[in-house]
């Protein structure tokens, strides 16, 4: 039964990915001005356009092109970017541009997750253990404030405090990509701090709400009536039942990091995947936009899928659907 449910979710996940790929393809391909036009730009003549279109397979009908694109995508051939195109060349292969950028973004997201998840779960739990106390109220108010302002605002104020008033760190992280040791830590510090703050406030709020929700269930009431100490109730009874929902919350919030990363990489000029995509949008480098959007959406869908699985695995009722 469990296997069946998992297989079903996997099938749904793959179907969603396919639909998303169609949407991305339609969004960028059906509109006027194809890649051949963009690559040739001013130098376009009807003959050179036709030749390049034939070379890139753009003379095929849209659905054929979609399957070509999808097939290439599966085999890791992401096409060519507009960047570096000119006489005789048709541009840099996208996969070459993506790999170093992706590595940077994964490093940033990894550090953020490693710091934010334990920190926010601990604070959320503490707030739920002592509801109504000063600690709880501070956590609730701060996080409410933080989630109702945009990410770039958090970043702006952080730059103001840490870089301008305290002067601890540079305001922007210009990375060449081969920093090591202390240099790397300094470059990563501000983007990480911003993302940690943004991600933690969500996780904290939801962890607190989840644990409080479990705390209002009958068996906890029973434990209280039996006289079990508060700490023991939380750590032995409530926490184990809240783990599923909490993993769910964590995975969902890591998925929301996708949009946070876009903003933060732009502010701090961090050479990651999101910055690459924003630059591609600004220069209207459609093949590159397609590739980046596909990677981000796939990550997002995988994380949502993990969240979904976590809630199935942790809930016996969902594990054995009637």
């Amino acid at each position, binding site marked *: 039964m469990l296997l069946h449910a998992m297989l079903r979710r996997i099938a749904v996940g793959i179907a969603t990915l396919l*639909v998303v790929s169609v949407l991305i393809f339609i969004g960028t391909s059906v509109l006027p001005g194809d890649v051949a036009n963009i690559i040739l730009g001013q130098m376009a003549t009807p003959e050179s356009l036709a030749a390049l279109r034939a070379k890139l397979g753009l003379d095929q009908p849209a659905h054929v092109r979609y399957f070509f694109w999808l097939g290439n995508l599966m085999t890791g051939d992401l096409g060519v970017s507009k960047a570096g195109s000119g006489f005789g060349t048709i541009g840099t292969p996208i996969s070459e541009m993506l790999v170093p950028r992706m590595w940077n973004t994964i490093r940033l997201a990894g550090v953020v997750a490693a710091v934010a998840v334990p920190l926010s779960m601990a604070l959320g739990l503490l707030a739920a253990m002592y509801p109504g106390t000063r600690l709880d109220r501070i956590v609730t108010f701060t996080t409410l404030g933080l989630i109702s*302002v945009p990410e*770039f605002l958090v970043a702006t104020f952080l730059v103001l405090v840490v870089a301008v008033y305290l002067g601890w760190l540079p305001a922007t992280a210009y990375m060449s990509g081969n920093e090591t040791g202390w240099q790397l830590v300094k470059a990563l510090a501000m983007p990480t701090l911003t993302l940690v703050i943004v991600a933690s406030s969500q996780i904290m709020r939801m962890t607190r709400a989840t644990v409080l929700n479990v705390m209002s269930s009958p068996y906890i009431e029973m434990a209280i009536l039996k006289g079990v100490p508060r700490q023991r109730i939380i750590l032995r009874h409530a926490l184990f039942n809240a783990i599923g929902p909490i993993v769910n919350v964590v995975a969902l919030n890591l998925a929301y990091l996708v*949009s946070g990363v876009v903003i933060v990489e732009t502010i701090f000029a961090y050479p990651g995947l999101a910055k690459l995509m924003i630059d591609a949008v600004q220069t209207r480098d459609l093949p590159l936009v397609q590739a980046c959007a596909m990677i981000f959406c796939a990550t997002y869908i995988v994380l949502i899928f993990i969240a979904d699985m976590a809630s199935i695995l942790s809930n016996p009722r969902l594990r054995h659907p009637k």
Partner: protein
Amino acid sequence: MTETTGKTGAAAQFEELPDAPPRRRLQLSWTGKLGVCVVVFWAAIVVAGPTIAPYHEADILDEALFVVPGSDNPYPDTDYQPPSRVVYLGSDYLGRDTLSRTLFGARTTIGISLASTLLAYLVGVTLGIAAAVGGATLDTVLSRINDAFLSMPTIMLGLVVIAAIGSTIPILIMLTGLIYATSVFRIARALGLDVMVSDFVEAARVRGEGLWWIITREILPNVAMPMATDFGLRFVYVILFISSLSFLGLGVQPPQSDWGSMVRENLSGLPYGSIAPLVPALAIATLTIAINLIVDDVSAHAGGKLARRMI
């Protein structure tokens, strides 16, 4: 908030019946009242902002205006000037008045966000209610299409479309409206389905009322209050989305002022202690937090059940 208004003929008669439940008045806490004050303030700025602004949003101020106190020498620069009697909130990176740009920007930012939210509601509620009442096939088709759009991060959807067709204000409104229509659709459909299976709809059907009658007399009044709360939240999300796009340089284009792009273009002034990026940032923060405070009160009034639905 309009509890007391809108009592027209039929409703007033019903209230006189002995078994009509007493109407609960919405009690705002002090935070809610503060929120209302801030929102009213910004609404007034939207209406009157351009009239009371000392300069035009695109005016690059003349160097002659900036004079070193106590002498006749003008400052060497007009950009990133501190607040003075010439520019009450300082000048920005091109030497434009920050106060004027913030006042003009209120109309752009709030206007675009409001138009997008209204569009999202028009599309989302129409399709959501249609899915709720229109039978299984229509429901499945609409829900599947909606799920596909929901499975992409909003910012990615926005970026792909803007990459393809560029960014003008009508495109921005359409794009944001349609992106957020997906979540409105989900809520409207869920609420609509809840009402559709209730006893009073059953009774109306048995009475022989038509579908249109049921939608307008039973469903819409019953989903109105939860949707109103959601409208506030959605409006906040839209403001954040539009500002983020503008911040990335992909939203409202210069020289028009918009709070998100104002933060971005003046970010380089931060190291010099300029307040030019902080003023629009504070404007966004006060507005969004104020709306959240009101929504908190209203949803507590409506029973708090909503909070769990609105993800």
